[in-house]
């Protein structure tokens, strides 16, 4: 039986178990004086039976699926002719690869074609046995579950508590997925980074001034220095993020102040959704806009002023990234400004301050921690932004503070290093994970600080 039929059979069996359990509980209730003598509802008994039938069998299938390839490999290798088995591990791995390919229907070529065919035939036979055994075991466990359920269902049996316990376990498992995701990110990035730092010292990576990740394949190859000093990337990232914040900071903050303090109700109901549209535009669209419209405009403007502007200038990427972040800054600042108690406004106005003075001298200072937190979140967003810089910023590392020149960023390098086919043991590919680690750590620190500040601030006025 194929996997899908087994799953389908199990589903049907679970449904049948539900009906049977329900009937059984009702029959028992009738025998012992009405439905009121049951501890739980009949449907709870049914659900308990369905859980007993379905869950262990599905778990079995899951583990079977995970372990099958390794066990099959072992069995096939144990039966190989001795001269094949005598090969070293790498060759044996290649041989098994051939076997698996043959099983999958591809034609394997090579010197050991005959041995491969024999092994593949055995592999296929084992696979068939495995599928049969799997189906038998799954159905057997399901039937055992049904028998167990049949026995345990009694009027005094606390079926509801059991079923709710299972549901609660599922809920807990789902909520811990967030932690597993974080752990997964940390492990996957850290693991490859450590492999990278075994080849390139951490200090060279963090403080080196030269970035050219082409490693030489041959010793005498030209132009492949394989330098992994990431400072130019950090500098480029900071430069573009700085430009973005120069655009988004003042504009976003002023928009928030205007909408929260001055704008008539009607204007707010129109302007806010418009800003949300700006926030909802995919970043790839901003990237296209930056490369197609903004960069040529800036270049042309620079030409008329007699400046030499690179066609992939940091200014264009930063400017468009700033536009992208405006709604982010404005909505965070808006929340914070609205959280300032009305009494503080009223007090300042009653003392004769103008509206602007109230805002500048009372509201902004009161909201400052929250605004700073929002800005930090915006910076972390700018640092991690990928598509705009991939499409509008440069590719070659360039250590400069001139916004008219092309710079590259951490995210651009991650993308260029990892797009396309890669071999997983070269320093070039691994360096992308080291960059990812830096990116993750920096944004994590910014986020933790920002979230902490914002939360503290909210509590202050709650």
């Amino acid at each position, binding site marked *: 039986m194929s996997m899908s039929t087994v799953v389908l059979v199990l589903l049907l069996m679970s449904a049948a178990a539900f009906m049977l359990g329900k009937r059984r509980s009702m029959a028992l209730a009738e025998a012992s004086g009405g439905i009121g003598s049951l501890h739980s509802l009949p449907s709870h008994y049914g659900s308990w039976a369905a859980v007993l039938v379905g869950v262990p069998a599905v778990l079995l299938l899951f583990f079977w699926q995970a372990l099958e390839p390794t066990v099959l490999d072992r069995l096939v290798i144990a039966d190989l002719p001795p001269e094949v088995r005598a090969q070293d591990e790498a060759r044996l791995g290649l041989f098994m690869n051939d076997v698996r390919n043959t099983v999958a229907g591809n034609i394997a070529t090579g010197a050991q074609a005959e041995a491969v065919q024999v092994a593949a035939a055995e592999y296929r036979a084992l696979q068939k046995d495995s599928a049969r055994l799997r189906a038998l075991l799954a159905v057997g466990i399901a039937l055992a579950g049904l028998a167990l359920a049949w026995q345990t269902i009694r009027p005094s049996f606390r079926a509801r508590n059991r079923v709710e316990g299972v549901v609660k376990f599922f809920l807990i498992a789902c909520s811990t997925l967030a932690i597993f*995701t*974080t752990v997964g990110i940390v492990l*996957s990035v850290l693991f490859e980074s450590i492999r990278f730092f075994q080849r390139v010292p951490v200090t060279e990576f963090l403080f080196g001034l030269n970035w050219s990740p082409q490693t030489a394949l041959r010793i005498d190859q030209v132009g492949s220095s394989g330098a992994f000093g990431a400072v130019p990337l950090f500098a480029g990232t900071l430069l573009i993020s700085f430009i973005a914040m120069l655009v988004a900071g003042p504009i976003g903050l002023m928009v928030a102040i*205007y909408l929260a303090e001055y704008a008539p109700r009607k204007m707010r109901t129109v302007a806010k959704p418009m800003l949300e549209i700006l926030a909802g535009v995919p*970043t790839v669209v901003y990237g*296209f806009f930056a490369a197609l419209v903004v960069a040529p405009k800036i270049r042309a403007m620079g030409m008329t002023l007699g400046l030499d502007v690179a066609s992939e200038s940091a200014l264009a990427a930063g400017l468009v990234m700033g536009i992208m972040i405006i709604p982010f800054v404005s909505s965070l600042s808006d929340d914070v400004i609205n959280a300032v108690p009305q009494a503080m406004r009223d007090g300042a106005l009653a003392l004769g301050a103008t509206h602007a003075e109230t805002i500048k001298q009372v509201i902004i200072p009161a909201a400052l921690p929250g605004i700073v937190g929002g800005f930090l979140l915006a910076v972390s967003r700018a640092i991690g932004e*990928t598509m705009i810089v991939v*499409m509008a910023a440069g590719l070659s590392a360039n250590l400069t503070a001139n916004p008219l020149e092309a710079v590259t960023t951490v995210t651009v390098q991650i993308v260029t290093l*990892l797009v396309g086919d890669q071999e997983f043991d070269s320093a070039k590919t691994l360096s992308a994970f080291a960059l*990812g680690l830096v990116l993750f750590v920096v944004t994590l620190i910014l986020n933790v600080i920002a979230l902490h500040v914002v939360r503290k601030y909210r509590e202050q006025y709650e």
Partner: protein
Amino acid sequence: MSSMSDRPGAGRPPIHEVVQQSLGRRYRAERRFKAYGIIALVLALSFLGLLLISIIGNGYTAFQQTFVKLEFTLDPETVDPKGDRSEASLRTGNYLAVVRNALSGEFPDVSGRSDRRALSALVSTGAVYQLQNMVMEDPSLVGQTVEMWVPADDDADMYMKGRISADVPESDRRLTDKQIGWLDQLIADGRMEKKFNTALFTNGDSRDPELAGILGAVKGSFYMLMVTLALSFPIGVAAAVYLEEFAPKNRWTDLIEVNINNLAAVPSIVFGLLGLAVFLNFFGLPRSAPLVGGLVLALMTLPTIIIASRAALKAVPPSIREAALGMGASRMQTTFHHVIPLALPGMLTGTIIGMAQALGESAPLLMIGMVAFIVDVPQGLFDPATALPVQIYLWADSPERAFVERTSAAIIVLLGFLLVMNLLAVLLRRKFERRW
């Protein structure tokens, strides 16, 4: 007791005068400050306007495509080399020659190799496949002369749409003066016409702009979103229900909360690295498959859905829970029979917004190999596929002028999808929003 004149500040004008004098300045500052706010808002909105106008202005023409009407003589010798009208024979026919002959028939005075090549460059290579398919479907056409519309090449299309101007010096444009002369003649004969560009919606990717379409990318995005939805909605809701309704307040749940909030702010490309290291290298799932893309996007949208679902659960007043508990329902029954149904609209709204985010996301997909040039339309979760935003990224990199137009058109389609999803979320919120 001191007299009035001993007071500090004596000799200065009275306070109300100081205030009076400074009032003008303060009012001006007030107006200035307000003006800054208006300027900022206008700037932000004009950026939005500029963005939309430039995209739409570049893209609306891509919904039309130029076609050329030519008379094709399906000469038996070129089309059917074996002469038996069999499928194998018709497949090997030289349809390119048919197209070339049709063009030389239109312009009999064109001679010389390079001129002829320039002439045949005006018609898309798609015409060859169109002829081949037509003849293979109906072999009785062999030997006849058929008149039909075939797609023009992208440069001819650009000229027809006015994106290539004859005023530019010849060396600066992709069409020669001769080619423009032929095109003008075709236009004057009424043999060139713009029609609705169905290829854009029914084809996969192609190196030829006039044949490139977004169907493959749209389908890839669709499969991916299905995976994302199937995973992130139930898991997100379950996590939110646990954290909001059942979780004890302790360090462990605090840790989960902090984790969720942080994951919401982790750069999307880091999720791509996770997908590459875990799903592709560790679990050995296929590259470029919508399944992997969906898994990565599900992990990415989970925090959004959890946060929105928790807000929706929080908005359900405690009285509902108390009433249900008072009637003897268990906590699980209270939650599943009363609280979740009331919070469902809010949860769905959050999910739709999360899906919209996932639809527009491209950076993590670059990491898991969904940037390949894929012509075939994917048919399942394991087929190599690309996604709509990634298709936009790929086209944006193409040098042809016609791809700028098509990129913008793909963006319009993407923004259309996003608009519909967000409108749906707004409508859902409007319809089911309850103030308790």
